[in-house]
C-alpha cells in the first residue's frame, strides 16, 4: 500500500528526515491559510506524472493559490481524484539527489539505490549506484559508503549518511517495500531536505504494523474498480482489456490460462486467482466480481483441485447459473472430488470439460 506524499513526509519527519514546512489543504478555500509565497501546490494522488498532468502549480499570492487549488481538486489523474493538496514554500536547490531503499532479488536483500543526479528521469540517467545491505542488517557505514560513491566529501558524507540511516529506520520499522526520496536536495543552508517522498508498505506485512492497519482501503485509489473491490474481498484480481472473464486457482495456472486464451485468439478480461481451498461463498463472490465488468461476454473457469474441493466450485457455479441463467459459462474442472462435482454440474445443466485447451477454445469462440 502506497502512502500519499504528505503521509510519507509526515512519516519522514517522525523519523527525523527534514522536509519543507508543508500545509495540507482539503478544500480550495484553505488556500487562503497559506503564509509563505511563492508556494508550490501539489495534488496528492498516488499516480506518477503529476506535473505533466497539471497537478503541480506555483502561486505567488493567496488568490493565485485559491484558483490553482480549485482546479487541482477537479483534476482526475489516471482514475485518481485528489482529496488533498500539499502546499510547500519554494526552496533553494543547490543539488538534487535520488535515494531509495528496496529489496532486490539479485542481492537477495535490501539495497540502497542512489544517484547524484536526482529528478524525474532517474531510470534513464544511468549513474545509479547500489550499496547492498547484507542479510538485512544495517550499519551506519553503509550510508557513508554510498555517500562517497556519490562523490560527497567531508561533512556532506556525515549529513548524507544520517539521512540514509533515518531512511533505513523508516524502511525497516514499517516493513516497507520501498522508501524513496526524489529529489533529496541540498538547500541554500547546505542542509539535506526531502523534497518529495514515496513510501510503500509491504501488503503482506501490514497486519503487523498497527499504525497502518485498517488504512488499506484509503490507499487503493489507483486501482481499477474490480481491483479495488477485489482487495476489499481478499480476491486477487488484475484488470485487463479483453472480454473473457477468467476465474482460476493458482497464480501460475491463471497466467497460463490467460496466455492460452491469447494463444487461441481471445482476449482475457482479467486475471483472477481464487486461491487454494476456496469455499463456495468465496468462489461465488469471485464469479460476481469477474462478471461485474460489462465487457465480459463469457466466463472461463479453470480449476485444478489440489487443496481445492471441486464440489465447492461446482456448488458456487450452480448458484451462479441459477441467479444468472443467461450468463455464458465455460468450465474446466478436474482433481479433488471431480466426480461428485461433475454430477452437480450435470444436474445444474452446466457443460463441463476436463481438457484445458478444449475449454479455452470454446470460451474464445463464445466471446468472438
Amino acid at each position, binding site marked *: 500500500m502506497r502512502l500519499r506524499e504528505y503521509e510519507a513526509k509526515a512519516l519522514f519527519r517522525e523519523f527525523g528526515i527534514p522536509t519543507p514546512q508543508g500545509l495540507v489543504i482539503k478544500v480550495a478555500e484553505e488556500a487562503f491559510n497559506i503564509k509563505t509565497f511563492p508556494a508550490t501546490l501539489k495534488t496528492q494522488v498516488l499516480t506518477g506524472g503529476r506535473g505533466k498532468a497539471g497537478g503541480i502549480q506555483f502561486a505567488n499570492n493567496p488568490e493565485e493559490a485559491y484558483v490553482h487549488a480549485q482546479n487541482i481538486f477537479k483534476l482526475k489523474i489516471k482514475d485518481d481524484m485528489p482529496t488533498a493538496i500539499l502546499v510547500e514554500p519554494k526552496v533553494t536547490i543547490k543539488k538534487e539527489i535520488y535515494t531509495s531503499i528496496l*529489496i532486490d*532479488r539479485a542481492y*537477495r*536483500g535490501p539495497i540502497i539505490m542512489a544517484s547524484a543526479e536526482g529528478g524525474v528521469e532517474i531510470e534513464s540517467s544511468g549513474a545509479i549506484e547500489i550499496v547492498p545491505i547484507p*542479510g538485512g542488517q544495517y550499519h551506519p557505514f553503509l550510508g557513508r559508503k554510498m555517500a562517497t560513491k556519490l562523490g560527497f566529501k567531508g561533512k556532506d558524507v556525515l549529513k548524507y549518511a544520517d539521512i540514509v540511516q533515518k531512511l533505513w529506520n523508516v524502511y525497516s520499522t514499517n516493513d516497507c517495500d520501498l522508501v524513496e526520496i526524489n529529489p533529496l536536495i541540498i538547500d541554500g543552508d547546505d542542509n539535506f531536505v526531502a523534497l518529495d517522498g514515496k513510501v510503500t508498505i509491504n501488503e503482506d506485512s501490514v497486519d*503487523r504494523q498497527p499504525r497502518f492497519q485498517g488504512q488499506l482501503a484509503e490507499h487503493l485509489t489507483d486501482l481499477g474498480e474490480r481491483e479495488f473491490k477485489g482487495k476489499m474481498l481478499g480476491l486477487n484480481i488484475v484488470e485487463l482489456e479483453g472480454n473473457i472473464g477468467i476465474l482460476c486457482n493458482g497464480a501460475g495456472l491463471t497466467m*497460463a490460462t490467460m496466455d492460452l486464451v491469447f494463444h487461441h485468439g481471445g482476449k482475457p478480461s482479467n486475471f483472477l486467482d481464487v486461491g487454494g481451498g476456496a469455499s463456495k461463498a468465496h468462489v461465488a463472490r469471485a464469479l460476481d466480481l469477474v462478471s461485474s465488468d460489462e465487457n465480459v461476454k463469457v466466463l472461463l473457469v479453470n480449476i*485444478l483441485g489440489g487443496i481445492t474441493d471441486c464440489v465447492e466450485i461446482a456448488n458456487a457455479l450452480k448458484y451462479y447459473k441459477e441467479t444468472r441463467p443467461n450468463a455464458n459459462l465455460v468450465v474446466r474442472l478436474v482433481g479433488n472430488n471431480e466426480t461428485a462435482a461433475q454430477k452437480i454440474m450435470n444436474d445444474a445443466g452446466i457443460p463441463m470439460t476436463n481438457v484445458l485447451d478444449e475449454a479455452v477454445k470454446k470460451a474464445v469462440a463464445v466471446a468472438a
Partner: protein
Amino acid sequence: MSVLINKNTKVIVQGITGAMGKTHAGLMKAYGTKIVAGVTPGKGGTEVDGVPVYDSVAEAVEKTDANCSVIFVPPYLCLDAALEAIDAGIPLISVITEGLPPMDAVKLHAAAEAKGVLVNGPNCPGIITPGECLIGIHPGSIYMAGRVGLISRSGTLTYEIGLGLKQAGIGLSTAVGIGGDPIIGIDQITSLKLFEADKDTDIIILVGEIGGSAEEEAADYIKEHIKKPIIGYIAGRTAPPGKRMGHAGAIISGNKGTAESKTKAFEAAGVKVAKTPSEIVDLVKAKVSVAV
C-alpha cells in the same frame, strides 16, 4: 533414485495443529511420507492423526532423528519456526506458508545459507517424489513415478503438467515446486544441478513465470553445465507490466522480467520452449520416444 526427498526422508510438520498443517500432515501420511513428528509450541504431548506433537524442533529431532521439516505456521511466525529448524540441524526445510514479509525472507535465507541448509519456498507447494515421499500440498494422486524431473515456480500449473504427463503415461522422478516469492531458497539452478546429477532423471521440465531474472540466470547456467534435455515454459506472456500476478514474485518491473526475455534466454541456451501446457507434454513425449 530422486532428488531432495525419497522413501527414507523423515519429516516433521511445524504447525501441525493448525488447520492447514493438520490436513496436509494427514494427506502426506496417507501418501506414504514418513511423518515422524509434529511441532507446535504449547501443544507438546498431544497427538495429531497418530503423530506425536512436540513443543520444540530440537526435542522432535532428538526423539525422531527427523531430517526434513515442512512448515505450515502463519506468516509472522514463519521466520522463527524456520530458524528453529535450522538451529536444530534439519538439512532440508520446505516452507509452504504464503505471505512471509520480505525482510523475514531475507533473514531466513541468509541464516540458511550461512549454515548450508536447503530451504524450499516459501510460498510453494513443496516437493514430491512420486510413490516415495510427498512434502507440502501437492495432490499426490495426480503424479506418477518416472524419469522426468520437474521444476516450477507455480503450484497448480505443476499439477496441470503432472496430470498431463500421467495421462500420457509419463512419470516424474521428482517435482520441485520452488515457489512464487521473489526470494526463494532452492531455486532453478539448485534444482537443475540436482537433476543433472540424478541418474534416474532423463529429461527436465523447467516452468518459469514473469518477474525477476531467475530464468535468465538459469539459462546461463544451463549453457555451461546441463547436458540433459530441457523443456521450458514461461507463464504470464499476457500479463501487463507493473501488476503483481498473484505471486509476490510475478511482476514485470519496467521492462525487466518479461516472458519474451525469458523465452529468448531459454532458447539461446538450447531449451525447447513450449507455448502451452499441453505442448510441454507433447515435447516430453517426443523426447521420451526418441530416447526409447
